[in-house]
């Protein structure tokens, strides 16, 4: 797939991957063997009929291909860009052993983009029946959007509540626009709005009102998809210094609040010059590549394990490296050092070595005694994970939660300990991927449909 040149793109916020042309898509689609047992579909959390849509692409029937995808995935243009296909559908592609798997993700992106550009929607918005049962969806990220869209399609009256002033959750505040352009995200949300879903921004459930109040105010069921938005810090000395950010804050300032356009936009951000990003997941890569685009001279990923254990997608690591991000592996920060005015100046690190595998199966890193050294930095971005926001669990009586803060759910249905209340996505699983959250939103929509049908029957 064509991409912007690394040198150029490292200084702009335009999308990195440029997408297939029609000819390229048709050619790639022709590689699909249309296996009868569809191994790829097994790898798809939302069960897109992959061989079917790819055959349609090969026959240049793009509109129909897009319809097949849209049936299973209301956010196909997003997933085609951010899904880790190499660990999902493409992993099971029989062509993988021949000359590489069929590029399913790129084809998904192609048909979704094609449909957005070439298919005019008729503009009518289905109105749920006046006596339709009502569902409240808390959070407008991937889980909430998917659940809301699926339920609206089944005729329910769905209201989505979002704490921030814009919709999309992590797709808006977390994922940078060079990976997911805002126009694509806006169009996807608009398509869900057209399905009849009502959206309310500026609403912090747990503060503005509670889950209990929703249940007492005419909502027959609630889906909680509030994600894992609370930052994890390292708890090492100096973390309070100016210049030390949680990745969430750094990315939110740039993505949601558009701080790169300060002072035209009101939200400021200190431009990083020498920047360390701690962690090696997708969020760390996003933060590092964003720091480069803000003009940083040097950006270094600092990670306590080795390359093999990095949780980020291979493609993201590759993109970051191409753009000039440096990697300081087997290294862990132990202290942030500042000047007398509280500004970050240096980061003291220690070298690590890998020992026996830990409970995650990855080799456990150990500090190498006496190997401390200092890095000169003015910005340090901590991207070592996120946990669920505590507001809902603190304000919802009777909601069972795990020790680490996640909501306890039935894995198949998302049912929580409260009848009529379902949950899914990162708030139940801990920080995972966009598509896993969407899969959970979809399964909960099916379960909520069944729950409401039985409620109707009983009523």
């Amino acid at each position, binding site marked *: 797939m064509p991409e912007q040149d690394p040198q150029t793109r490292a200084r702009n916020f335009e999308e990195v991957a440029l997408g297939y042309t029609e000819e390229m898509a048709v050619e790639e689609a022709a590689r699909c063997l249309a296996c009868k047992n569809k191994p790829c579909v097994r790898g798809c959390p939302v069960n897109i009929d992959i061989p079917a849509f790819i055959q349609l692409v090969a026959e240049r029937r793009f509109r129909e291909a897009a319809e097949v995808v849209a049936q299973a995935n209301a956010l196909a243009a997003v997933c085609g860009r951010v899904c880790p296909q190499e660990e999902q559908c493409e992993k099971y592609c029989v062509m993988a052993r021949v000359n590489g798997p069929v590029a399913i993700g790129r084809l998904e992106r192609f048909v979704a983009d094609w449909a957005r550009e070439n298919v005019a929607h008729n503009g009518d918005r289905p109105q749920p029946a006046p006596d339709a049962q009502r569902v409240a969806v808390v959070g407008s990220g991937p889980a909430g959007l998917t659940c809301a869209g699926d339920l609206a399609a089944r005729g329910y009256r769905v209201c989505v509540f979002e704490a921030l002033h814009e919709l999309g959750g992590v797709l808006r505040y977390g994922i940078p626009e060079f990976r997911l352009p805002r126009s694509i995200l806006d169009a996807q949300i608009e398509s869900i709005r057209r399905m009849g879903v009502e959206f309310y921004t500026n609403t912090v459930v747990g503060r503005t009102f509670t889950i209990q109040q929703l249940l007492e105010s005419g909502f027959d069921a609630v889906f909680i998809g509030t994600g894992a938005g609370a930052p994890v810090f390292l708890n090492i000395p100096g973390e309070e210094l100016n210049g030390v950010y949680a990745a969430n804050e750094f990315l*939110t300032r740039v993505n949601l609040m558009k701080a790169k356009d300060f002072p035209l936009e009101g939200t400021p951000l200190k431009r990083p010059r020498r920047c360390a990003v701690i962690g090696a997941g997708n969020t760390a890569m996003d933060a590092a590549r964003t720091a480069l685009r803000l003009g940083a001279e040097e950006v270094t990923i600092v990670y306590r394990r080795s390359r093999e254990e990095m949780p980020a997608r291979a493609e993201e690591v590759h993109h970051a490296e191409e753009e000039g991000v440096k990697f300081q592996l087997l290294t862990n920060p132990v202290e942030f050092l500042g000047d007398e005015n509280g500004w970050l100046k240096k980061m003291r690190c220690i070298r690590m070595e890998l020992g026996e595998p830990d409970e995650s199966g990855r080799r456990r890193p150990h500090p190498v005694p006496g190997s401390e050294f200092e890095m000169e930095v003015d910005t340090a971005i901590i991207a070592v994970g996120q946990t669920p926001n*505590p507001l809902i669990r603190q304000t919802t009586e009777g909601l069972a939660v795990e020790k680490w803060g996640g909501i306890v759910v039935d894995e198949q249905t998302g049912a929580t300990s409260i009848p009529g209340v379902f949950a899914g996505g990162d708030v139940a699983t801990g920080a995972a991927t966009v598509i896993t959250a969407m899969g959970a939103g979809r399964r909960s929509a099916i379960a909520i449909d069944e729950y409401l049908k039985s409620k109707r029957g009983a009523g």
Partner: protein
Amino acid sequence: MDSGLPEGSRGSGDWISGNGHVCRLEGLLSPSSYRFEILEKERLSESVVRMVIRAPLVAASARPGQFLLIRPQERSERIPLTISHADRARGTITIIFQEVGATTRELGALEEGQQVKDLVGPLGTPSDIRRFGTVACVGGGVGIAVMLPVARALKHAGNRVVGIIGARTKDLLILEREMREASDELIVMTDDGSYGSRGLVTEALAGLAERERVDHCYAIGPLPMMHAVCRLTREKGIPTTVSLDPVMVDGTGMCGGCRVTVGGEAKFTCVDGPEFDGHLVDWDTLRARKTIYREEERAALEARSGKA
């Protein structure tokens, strides 16, 4: 004035006491509840503005000590402002703010009948209102607006409230009448002696503590004032609550930008606060963190005045 709220969805009870059940949401869950119209605007001093804004969902659940995040216009920053008053029946909240930076000036430029772009709340943990006995409520500058609802709630809870309010000069003193009503006794201080007694609020507090037993102290105002009050009350053994306003983005515990060190632990002001035990706050760190965007704030002001 008619609230325009649907029947049955009007909030009941009083936001200070928390009595009365909170309204049902049905009538309020409509786009009209999200049109944050400015119903009243009044200048309390040259740079301090009071606004009454329609926000029925927020008014229905707000409690003293909580705050809002407001984005006055499409391109504005989100800024935290304390809720000075909530009128549940009318569906309004009141904010009082000083025009100091670009965003507060953008807000102050809006007029009655206009809307703020975004408003979300109530955020933060409400004040922990108890019956302490005698409480000194020390408010400085625009912090008096934050102090007022807490003083009212403390008085309602049966405390003897001694208000101590201060400003640089007479023209900058706000809410004297309201604080007088909320207090059993009110002491007014100005730095230049143009009104009340000449001196700092800490001097008045020291005098009060000499003359009678003070069981608890609330201190809300500029950071140096709160820090000075805490030094004094620590010496005198008076437990003290402060309300902090560090840099903040989302206000829901997501960004960690508002972290402050309290008792050696990192706390998020937006969800763990904004009120903390003043004797445990690491004031030096807080002071440094508050200066993080000082240069940018200047640039933003210049950019905006350049346009005007």
